[in-house]
């Protein structure tokens, strides 16, 4: 059709392979999640019981509602745990393949580093590093494009939040050097 020349095509060369070894099954993850939730319910339930989960003359004490919420949470999680153990088909269902996990980590690890860096360098420098680094290393985009994009982005963010909207962001030594 007439659309052949106006097609938009975007390639994804580093896409996860369709067939890749499974890292873990949905069943394992469900079981882990339910165990964590039961533990959380026990911990929070204990704290609420300690602060008073009884019924005073004028109604519930401060821990009353949260305590029973913990009971419900624990019950629902135990039910889910039992169901996950009993359902064999879940064991065959892949939670994440190795290739997919690699891609997820490619975003998660830089994000983690970015948050840690924000504490030391301020959010603008950290975001400059994140955008440039991510584009260059994960996206394999040319150095100059990555650098220009990240610089423009950090500047736009700075102007939008700090100057136009008066929202104060964490800043580090570099902003201090420029006296901002």
């Amino acid at each position, binding site marked *: 059709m007439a659309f052949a020349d106006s097609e*938009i095509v975007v390639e994804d060369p580093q*896409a996860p392979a369709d067939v890749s070894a499974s890292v873990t099954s949905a069943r394992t993850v469900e079981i882990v999640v339910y165990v964590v939730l039961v533990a959380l319910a026990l911990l929070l339930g204990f704290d609420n019981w300690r602060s008073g989960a009884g019924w005073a003359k004028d109604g519930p004490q401060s821990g009353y509602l949260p305590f029973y919420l913990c009971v419900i949470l624990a019950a*629902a999680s135990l039910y*889910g745990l039992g169901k996950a153990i009993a359902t064999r088909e879940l064991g065959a269902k892949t939670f994440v393949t190795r290739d997919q996990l690699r891609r997820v980590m490619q975003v998660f690890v830089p*994000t983690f580093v970015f*948050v840690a860096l924000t504490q030391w360098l301020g959010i603008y420098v950290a*975001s400059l590093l994140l955008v440039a680094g991510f584009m260059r290393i994960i996206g394999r985009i040319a150095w100059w494009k990555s650098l220009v994009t990240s610089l423009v*982005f950090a500047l736009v963010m700075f102007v939008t939040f700090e100057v136009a909207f008066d929202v*104060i962001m964490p800043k580090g030594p570099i902003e201090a050097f420029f006296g901002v």
Partner: protein
Amino acid sequence: MEAITLLLHGFAVLLTWKTLALMLVGLLLGIFVGVLPGLGGPNGVAILLPLTFTMDPTSAIVMLSCIYWGALFGGAITSILFNIPGEAWSVATTFDGYPMAQQGEAAEALTAAFTSSFIGSLVAVLLITFLAPRIASFALRFGPPEFFAVYLLTFCSFVGLGREDKHKTIISMTLGLLLAAVGMDTVSGRLRMTFGFDPLMRGVNFLVAVIGLFGISEILLTMEERLALRGHAASISLRVVLRVWRELPRYWVTLLRSSAIGCWLGITPGGAIAASFMGYNLAKRFSKHPETFGKGRIEGVFAPETAAHASGTSALLPMLALGIPGSGTAAILLGGLMVWGLNPGPLLFIEHKDFVWGLIASMYLGNIVGLVIVLTTVPIFASILRIPFAAVAPMIVVSCAIGAFAIQNAMFDVWLMLLFGVVGYVFKKIGVPLAPFTLALVLGNRSEDAFRLSMIGAGGDMAVFWSNGLVGSITTLALTLLLWPVLGGLFKSVGVRRREVGS
């Protein structure tokens, strides 16, 4: 009509250059957010919320709701041109929208989608204009027991009517309610579940959780998939628009039916996703040529889009009138109201007339301006998808972090956002729904306060929830809905046994 006078007053509030400019910015940002993979209505609104902290509430809500309209419009673009639904409620739009694009009718499909979105929203806004003030004035008579009963009804209907596994919905909801209770207890002033950890004293902020659960986790999920895409570029000419509009009257039954479905499911927590599928399926069932659906029939675009937008818009009705959001995005807007120091609920209509009617007026204006913008700028927005995801992803991460930090100026919140991102990713993959969590977190404190105030008023007697006809019927309805799956199962098994006996 009082509503019309007040609405005109609302337009007067809007018609300043500053508000109109913010509206335009909001719409453009919204369409942008709607088109981008890995972002959508709720995420976009949550991330951009910090921009509005220093504005006055009216400008803020106008901009945010315009982001919401824009995102609703934007979702249709990728569905039709690329067969990628930007949002779950756009899935039904791809059924006929993408085949139309393949047959070279992309412009027609897009015009149909935008126009029907507009019609759906318009019907819902009309409903809000005339119904919301009435519900609000009725709800003014509500005391704490009535409010608690309404909150209970909202929670129970999620458990009873949701399509997910019941125990997963319950887990998601109790987790939300528990997190809402962390920090200072508003009635007794005691600290709860803080374990002596200072940053927890303020509690877990709702918006931080939302940014993590929707924004960060969506990025992680998007990366898992193959991001290659292939689709059609399209531009819409005036000739096409007029041709599609001339055909509109022929489909009035479909449009009306979808609007009604959307409004109903939007006010009750059925949601836009269910509405779009139901609108599509009913249009197909009542059609004289059901076999042509799925092969590029324009009616198949009209039906789901009208329903989705009617639902997305009418979800704001219970939020404005009762303080109970009808959707995830409405919940975030509600969180925004609280940040700006407004108390959502029926009193809003009396104490903040300018705000409420400004918002309602902006729904009309935003949808009209939005329609014009999307019709004229489709080629630009479609080409946004050419931007590599490797450039978009880190920018979204930075926006999320800025958003999370700005809410309370706390670095702890940024870490919390990251944690919620991981939780959201795992929950989505094992099928724990996030909407009940969001709703519980935003309504948790209000419903607990309502419960305890009713208890104090009644001297600790639970019978207060059945003390009069109104509160009694709401409470009973809530419990029925909660037990609906059990009751339904009982009826069915009794029916089966009877039939077996009969045969």
